[in-house]
C-alpha cells in the first residue's frame, strides 16, 4: 500500500521489536521491555500482538488471526484485513495453512508445527500483579524465583473451594524458571503450551512487554502434588460437529433459555463438520 512501509511499522521500530523478541526467546518466560508504538487500534484490542506480528511478517507469510478461537469476530477480521492492506500478504482462516497465527485468548485445537509461529495478545504480562502491586518488587521476586505467594493463592482456593478456581490465565512455570502468564487462554489450553513445536511470542502493548516460549520448552501449570492441575471443559459435545475433545462456548439460542455448546475454534469445527 502506498505511503506505508511494509507491515505498517518503520524498519527501525521492527528492528527494535525483533531485538526484544530475540532476547525473550533467549530467556524463556522472562518479560522484556520494548518501546511500544501507538497503533491504529485502541489498547486492549491487541496492540502488543499486532506489533509483534508486524515485526516478524515477511512477504511470503500467510496470516491467520483468531479472537477467542473464532476467525469471524470484529477483532480478528479487522486485524487480518489490516495486514492484508499494509503488507499485501496472503491471509487464511485455516490453521494448517498459516505460517503466523495471531491469537486472542485461545490456542487452536489443531496441533501446530515447527514452521509456524503463534503470537498472543496479552493484556497483563505480570502474573504476580494481583499479589504484588509494586512492579519493582515483582521484578525482584522474578529475579530470585520466589513464587511462594502464587502457591498461597492456589492453597487458599483449595482450602475454601476444594479446588483451584482459576479458569483462565492460569499461571505456568516456563523452563523451570520463570513464572509466566499464558495470557487469558482457558486453563484447558495450558497443556498445549508444553513442548509445543511452534514458537510462541507474547506481546503486551499497554504494558510494553514481550516474552516468549521457544519451541519444545517445558511449561508446567502450577499445582500441588496431591491436587494436580486439571484442565476444565464443559461436559458436552459440540452441537455443530459433535466434538467431545475441543473447548466449547455456551451460546444462547433464543429468549426462552435455549442454549447449545459449540466449538470455540471455528476452523476446527468447520473442518470436522465438512
Amino acid at each position, binding site marked *: 500500500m502506498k505511503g506505508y512501509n511494509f507491515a505498517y511499522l518503520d524498519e527501525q521500530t521492527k528492528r527494535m521489536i525483533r531485538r526484544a523478541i530475540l532476547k525473550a526467546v533467549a530467556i524463556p518466560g522472562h518479560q522484556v521491555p520494548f518501546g511500544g508504538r501507538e497503533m491504529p487500534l485502541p489498547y486492549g484490542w491487541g496492540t502488543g500482538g499486532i506489533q509483534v506480528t508486524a515485526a516478524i511478517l515477511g512477504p511470503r507469510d500467510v496470516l491467520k488471526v483468531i479472537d477467542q478461537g473464532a476467525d469471524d469476530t470484529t477483532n480478528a477480521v479487522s486485524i487480518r484485513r489490516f495486514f492484508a492492506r499494509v503488507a499485501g500478504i496472503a491471509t487464511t482462516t485455516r490453521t494448517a495453512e498459516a505460517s503466523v497465527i495471531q491469537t486472542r485468548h485461545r490456542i487452536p485445537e489443531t496441533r501446530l508445527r515447527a514452521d509456524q509461529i503463534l503470537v498472543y495478545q496479552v493484556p497483563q504480562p505480570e502474573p504476580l500483579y494481583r499479589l504484588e502491586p509494586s512492579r519493582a518488587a515483582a521484578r525482584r521476586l522474578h529475579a530470585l524465583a*520466589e513464587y511462594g505467594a502464587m502457591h*498461597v493463592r492456589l492453597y487458599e482456593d483449595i482450602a475454601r473451594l476444594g479446588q483451584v478456581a482459576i479458569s483462565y490465565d492460569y499461571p505456568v512455570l516456563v523452563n523451570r524458571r520463570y513464572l509466566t502468564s499464558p495470557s487469558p487462554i482457558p486453563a484447558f489450553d495450558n497443556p498445549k503450551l508444553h513442548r509445543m513445536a511452534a514458537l510462541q511470542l507474547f506481546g503486551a502493548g499497554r504494558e510494553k512487554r514481550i516474552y516468549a516460549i521457544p519451541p519444545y520448552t517445558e511449561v508446567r501449570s502450577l499445582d500441588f502434588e496431591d491436587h494436580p492441575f486439571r484442565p476444565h471443559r464443559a461436559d458436552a459435545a459440540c452441537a455443530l460437529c459433535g466434538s467431545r475433545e475441543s473447548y466449547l462456548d455456551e451460546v444462547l439460542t433464543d429468549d426462552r433459555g435455549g442454549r447449545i455448546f459449540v466449538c470455540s475454534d471455528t476452523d476446527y469445527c468447520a473442518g470436522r463438520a465438512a
Partner: protein
Amino acid sequence: MSEPPLLQAEGLCLAYGAQVALDRVGLALWPGEVLAVVGESGSGKTSLLNVLSGRSTPDAGTVLYRDETDASAEVHAMAPPRLRRLYRSEWGFVHQDPRESLRMDISAGGNIGERLMESGQRHYGAIRATAAHWLAEVEIDPARIDEPPRQFSGGMRQRLQIARALVTHPRLLFMDEPTGGLDVSVQARILDLLRRLVARHRIAAVLVTHDLGVARLLAQRIAVMRAGRVVETGLTDQVLDDPLHPYAQLLVSAVLRV
C-alpha cells in the same frame, strides 16, 4: 563454652547523619540461647536488630553467621538470594505489629503455609497438616485454620505470627518487642508460650525490648544499650539484681516493684 557462637558481631557502627545509632557494638549469640537487648527508646536497639539480621547495612563492623552446614559467612557480604533463603528457613522474625509479617486477608493456614511453600513444599495435605499442628502449638484452635487473621484478637495474631516464624524450624529468631501493645494477661500467655517453644526447639534468639520483665522471663543473658553503645552485658539475674553500670542501675531502679 566449647561450641562456637551462632552469630557474632564485632565493631558495628551506624549513623544516620549526625545521629549515632550504633557505636562499636559487639556481641555473640550461642546456639539455644536467648539474648535480650534492653534500653530506652532511641538507644539503638532496633537498629542493632536490623543490622544483625542483614536488613540494614552498618557503616563499619562485621556480623558472622554460622549456618546449618557449620560454614561461617559475613551476613552483609551474602548475595541476596542466600540471605533471602536464610530469612525463610533458618531465621525467623517476630515483629511488634503482626501486620508486618502476616497477610491479613489470607487464612491462618495460608499464612503459616506460605513459609513452607516458599521453601519449596508442594504437598497440599502435608502443608495443611503442618499448619494445623503449629496452630495447636501456639494454642489457637486448629478449627480456625481457614479464618483470616483479620478476625483474630491481637494476642491471637501475635501467636499466629510466632507459629509462622517457627514452622520452618529456624535456628535463630529475631524478636522486636514481641509483647508490645498487648494487655498484661495476654502478654503473660505469649511469654509463657515463647519460653516453652524456644526451649523445646532449642532456638537461639535476639530479643529487643524495653520491658525488663520480658527480658527476665525469656533471656539467659542481657545487653544494656544506651546511646548506641552496649554499656553492660551479663547473665540476666546478675545484670538485673546487681547492675554495675550507673545507667543499668538507673534502668533497673526505674521499674516499679509490685
